């Protein structure tokens, strides 16, 4: 497995995690929550090779697990499953279309949010209004940030690959 590529794909996920925690810190006074699971998997599953992509998504999931009171590996397993679902149908999704990418991230985010809600099942039906508010908040932020995050990941990969190619050429 190409460990350099795994590290390259994991870097933006760490940044996303840091931004997500900052946004949640700010939203806490309004009792709102931002969940960005869809953003963790969508770009990687859509554009990257299977092995490094799955490894990066699992590392991103473990990063989320470490900071939350869920069984260690829950996020990783769910992110891995979402990655595989998108990976299997990625030939039918236009990779360069921003709207399609945003829709994919939204669907993935919706599915992951529901899956975690089912796993944790907080407070029964009484918790549904709060869960709905958190889901709406998450979907709005994911829809707004998907083009930026996809572009960031794409540019970072292009930059590093170009730099590595240049270095290899110089060494030759």
């Amino acid at each position: 497995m190409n460990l350099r590529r795994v590290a390259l794909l994991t870097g933006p996920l760490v940044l996303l995690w840091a931004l997500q925690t900052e946004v949640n810190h700010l939203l806490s006074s309004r009792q709102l929550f931002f969940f960005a699971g869809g953003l963790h998997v969508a770009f990687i599953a859509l554009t990257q090779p299977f092995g490094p992509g799955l490894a990066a998504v699992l590392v991103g999931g473990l990063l989320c697990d470490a900071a939350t009171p869920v069984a260690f590996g829950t996020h990783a397993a769910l992110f891995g499953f979402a990655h595989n679902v998108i990976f299997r149908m990625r030939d039918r999704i236009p990779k360069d279309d921003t709207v399609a990418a945003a829709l994919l991230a939204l669907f993935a985010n919706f599915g992951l949010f529901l899956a975690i809600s089912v796993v944790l099942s907080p407070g029964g039906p009484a918790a549904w209004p709060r869960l709905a508010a958190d889901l709406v908040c998450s979907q709005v932020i994911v829809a707004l940030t998907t083009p930026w995050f996809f572009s960031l990941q794409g540019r970072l990969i292009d930059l590093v690959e170009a730099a590595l190619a240049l270095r290899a050429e110089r060494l030759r």
Partner: protein
Amino acid sequence: MPSRRFDQARPFLTLGIILAFWLVLPAALKSFVRASFFELTAPITLAASKVRDLQEFWALRSHSKTELIEAGRDQARINASYEVAVQQTAELKAEIARLEELLRLPARDQYRLEHARVARRDFSAWWQRIVIRKGRDFGIPAGAPVVFSGGVVGRVVEVRATTAIVELITSPGVRLAGVIEGDSRPISFQGGNNPTFAPPTGIVELMPLDIIASPTSPKRLVTSGYGGVFPPGLTLGTVIRAELGSDGLHKSGEVRLDERLGSLNEVTVLVPLNVEVPLPAR
């Protein structure tokens, strides 16, 4: 055809093998990996918190000298009233110690106060937690109660090298014993669902039938001291509704919690002196 089907299932098979391998890993190894991942991200959390502090510092620096003088004057007044309260507290403590000695009662639990900045707040429908900027480096033990000026915040659930995680009383999974102020009968308190754009709420159960509470005449709910985690008399919230429970023997109701719990910046950890964790050498 079977080969193509296998190709399609291969990603899921790979994930299945990874998950099966993960499930059979020893719990100690998983715990170590979890702690490693947390410590890996701790500098990011701490750096973001310190940047926020710096931002606040520069915002405060932009205030005029007149505002600073006014704030200093107000602070001096508050300090004066606190000094009186401190003297009264010292007098009462001495009285309690004298009575305890006279009646040969066991001494009450004593705590060391450890003030800590909040590095991160994480409030969802699933969990309600904060990360504070003090951990093992300040001898904070797991299970220590955490308070603020408005009452109980929660308790420390995980302690790391330089941070600690506090589960708030607003968290749906939290349960503890409380009493109505002036009453000695214990009531079960549970963190509730926290509606958006509204103060957090909790639930009380097993409340005696003679207790009447409504939004117009709320009752203050305080910690009972049973269970040994929280000292007695700390504010939990106010009971604003009490109705006959399904069993007909007790009442259940709603507790309004302090809305400042959602925007905490500084908290105090009560470190029990009898379970003091040794501080690492610095």
